[in-house]
């Protein structure tokens, strides 16, 4: 204790010593701060890892001397713990130069918080409490030590005042870390009051697919301001693409391409699902363009109705498509099932020791589906953000705000709108194909109008145009639809001895959400600043193309 208090009192000297030491190594302080962010972060992770290693040595030593029957080396190298720690630390730890300007009374609780999360995640990920403790201590020290030490040399280098990028980096990265490790901790999690069990991995896949679709619809509705009431048509198109090209649907032919784990003598078309996801996206985008070209010159409310018409026609075609002049295209009400599962084949599976499963459906858990869905979702989000900030994205916003002005400023209306449609359709198609592969089936009743409204409700709830809001709204509503409503109903019936089948009334619940949001908070839960301003000040949304007036 005394040692610690003396250390504290002399921290400036310790800090000076530290920086001088670094300077002797050829890395003086100001030079360190001029390093790129990732190098600083890597240095920090190395420091954290070193500290964690020391802590583990100390813990092992203590165990050896005081524990019962402990033996073996005091240096235990638990690889998985260090890998997990490095991943978590890289994601969680902000750039070093952001920290020294913060007062210590902020840094230390912050470090404790981040360290706690890192420890929790690492511990759960490796299913080992000690790893968690080590990672936690390592992270805390790595975070708290530099600013503490920096006290010694503060006056030498005035650092640019820079706020920690909490909203832009820390929160998304922490969310990503939580999402990646989800299958590890989900089974151990608490039960949410009223809503029931913590979402299972199966539910999480469902949620991810619907988040993908909501992000896709957000491009059309949120960015470009085109109300699409038939988004489910794109979803159906993607699903049936996957179903046609990776199943026994067309026994007349026998085409195999890269399909791993499928008997080469099996009839039907079997193309590897990996290719199909991309193909489904492209095909659906083409369908989007075909639908869009004649309809996009209509004004907003007519466009909504036309898309609704397509959304209504699609499931009926799917249902009646088992006898199109005697040709069975869609399997009719029975749908198409089974659909080939994605996988990496035995060779890769063996080589990676099962990390890449040979067949997703036979692994016995939804984990592989979950991580792949997460990967596709990240791709979707990345594209969506890049699109939003691109020239095209700015053109969408311009059209949304004032079509006449945008066209006067040289924005080509039709081309820009068609691109919005194609992009939205692309994501919807990928999501549909992936979902079909996950369920290994596709049925016409998956594509009714209420699904379109369900996805629209996600976008509206979260905040049109704001991708994080949309993700949040979609995750919440998809969970509600898959598990939450049934659990809530059970809870209600149990506590108030009623007998209500809550999921049956889901349409009404989404209706209430839509109306309440539109009336009370039209910008959504997490509004995009720009959208909010539009809703307050109003837009000039008279269409440039208006046939009838």
């Amino acid at each position: 204790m005394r040692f610690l208090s003396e250390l504290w009192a002399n921290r400036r000297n310790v800090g000076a010593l530290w920086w001088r030491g670094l300077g002797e190594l050829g890395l003086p302080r100001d030079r360190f701060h001029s390093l790129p962010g990732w190098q600083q972060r890597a240095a920090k992770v190395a420091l954290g890892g070193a500290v964690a290693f020391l802590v583990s040595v100390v813990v092992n030593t203590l165990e050896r001397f005081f524990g019962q029957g402990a033996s073996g080396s005091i240096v235990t190298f638990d690889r998985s713990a260090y890998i997990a720690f490095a991943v978590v630390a890289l994601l969680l730890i902000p750039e070093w130069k952001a920290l020294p300007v913060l007062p210590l009374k902020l840094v230390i609780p912050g470090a404790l918080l981040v360290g706690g999360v890192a420890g929790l995640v690492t511990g759960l990920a490796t299913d080992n409490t000690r790893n968690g403790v080590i990672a936690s201590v390592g992270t805390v020290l790595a975070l708290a030590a530099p600013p503490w030490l920096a006290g010694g040399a503060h006056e030498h280098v005035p650092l640019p005042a820079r706020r920690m990028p909490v909203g832009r980096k820390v929160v998304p990265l922490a969310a990503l870390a939580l999402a990646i490790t989800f299958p590890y901790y989900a089974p151990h999690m608490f039960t949410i009051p009223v809503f029931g069990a913590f979402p299972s991995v199966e539910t999480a896949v469902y949620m991810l697919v619907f988040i993908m679709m909501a992000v896709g619809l957000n491009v059309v509705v949120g960015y470009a301001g085109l109300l699409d009431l038939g988004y489910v048509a794109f979803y159906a198109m993607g699903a049936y693409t996957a179903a046609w090209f990776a199943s026994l649907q067309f026994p007349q032919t026998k085409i195999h391409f890269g399909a791993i784990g499928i008997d080469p003598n099996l009839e039907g078309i079997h193309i590897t699902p990996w290719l199909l996801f991309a193909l489904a996206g492209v095909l659906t985008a083409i369908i989007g363009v075909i639908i869009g070209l004649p309809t996009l010159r209509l004004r907003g409310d007519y466009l909504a109705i036309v898309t609704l018409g397509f959304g209504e026609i699609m499931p009926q075609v799917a249902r009646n498509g088992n006898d199109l002049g005697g040709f069975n295209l869609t399997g009719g009400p029975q749908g198409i099932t089974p659909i080939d599962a994605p996988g990496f084949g035995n060779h890769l599976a063996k080589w990676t020791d099962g990390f890449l499963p040979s067949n997703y459906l036979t692994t016995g858990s939804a984990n592989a589906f979950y991580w792949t869905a997460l990967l596709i979702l990240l791709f979707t989000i990345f594209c969506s953000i890049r699109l939003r900030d691109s020239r095209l994205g700015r053109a969408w916003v311009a059209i949304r705000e004032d079509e006449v002005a945008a066209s006067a400023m040289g924005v080509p209306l039709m081309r820009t709108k068609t691109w919005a449609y194609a992009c939205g359709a692309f994501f919807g198609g990928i999501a549909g194909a992936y979902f079909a592969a996950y369920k290994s089936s596709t049925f016409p009743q998956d594509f009714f109008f209420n699904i379109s409204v369900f996805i629209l409700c996600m976008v509206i709830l979260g905040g049109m145009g704001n991708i994080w809001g949309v993700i949040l709204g979609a995750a919440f509503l998809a969970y509600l639809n898959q598990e939450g409503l049934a659990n809530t109903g059970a809870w209600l019936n149990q506590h108030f001895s009623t007998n209500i089948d809550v999921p049956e009334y889901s349409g009404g619940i989404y209706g209430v959400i839509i109306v309440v949001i539109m009336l009370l908070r039209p910008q959504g839960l997490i509004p995009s600043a720009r959208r909010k301003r539009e809703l307050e000040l109003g837009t000039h949304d008279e269409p440039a193309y208006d046939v009838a007036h």
Partner: protein
Amino acid sequence: MATQTADEALPKFRRSYRPAPLQALSVAFVAILAVWLIGNLVTEPSHWVYLLLQGLTYGMVYALIALGYSLVYGILELINFAHGDVFMLGAMMTTTLVGAFGLGVHGSVLVWILPMLIIVAVFTGALNTFIEVVAYRPLRGAPRLAPLITAIGISFILQTVGLVWKGPAPVSIRDNILPSGQIFRIGDGNFAWNQLIVFIVTLPTLVLLVWLVQKTKQGKAMRAVAQDKDAAAIMGIDVNRTISFTFLIAGLLAGFAGVIYALFVTNVQFDTGFRLGLFAFTAAVLGGIGNLPGAVLGALCIGLIEQFNNGLTWHTPGTDWTNTIIFAILILILVFRPEGLLGERTPEGG
């Protein structure tokens, strides 16, 4: 991207531009339709006539709903998605009243039909006005899509109300509540009393509506508000009250349609309103949205298309494809002739 030709950048205001191939296509389409109709007439003439009468009867019911869409669109430029569901609740109410009045057991429908029309119409009219005041009025200044999205939400809420009220199964009433004796007969085609009653209720309603919009002061106010809200307000017209009044009228029409539909079809389900609402909206668009005679014409067309497609046998897609055909018509009309058959108008044209 940097250099766009002026041609691309400027919207082309081509009001009635129609390329020649398109014209040829539409002529071909009409020709095929005519051949199909005549072919069926030759194969089974009596059934054809029966379907014609049946189609006109259904068309009259759709006309009442379509007028509600047209009225509201004319004044607010809002597609009132919830309208079909207001109609559905009216029909649900009718099934309840049929039980309450003991119709078909001891009461006579001809005695009770007038009170029933009044009760249901008051109910749906009040409901529609309430929806307008609560859900659409606060969004008067909002972007155009905001009330449309709200209307979809309201539609889902009303469907759920119907679901909670009557359950998921179709609600049926006795199917001979309306007298079904034949009045006249063309071959096999029976024109029965129940069809006549549909016309007896709907035709005077349509005449009354035209009179209301054309001749009364309130109708004049509606037309004024439809034309220019600001100017109407300057002239001393209470815009909000006029809009509410329009919703009231639309609700009354939906109520009439609900009573007639429930008694004539004898079968209502919680999602009937959504499907028929879309049919009626298609009818309104087909005739030219905002155009009241157009809505009636469009509704008759839709009724005929539905009945012919469901009933005919010679080269007919059949019931499975009815929705697809009607929505395809909706899409084609909106894409190629958004002003409809008779031209889009606000009620100022009547």
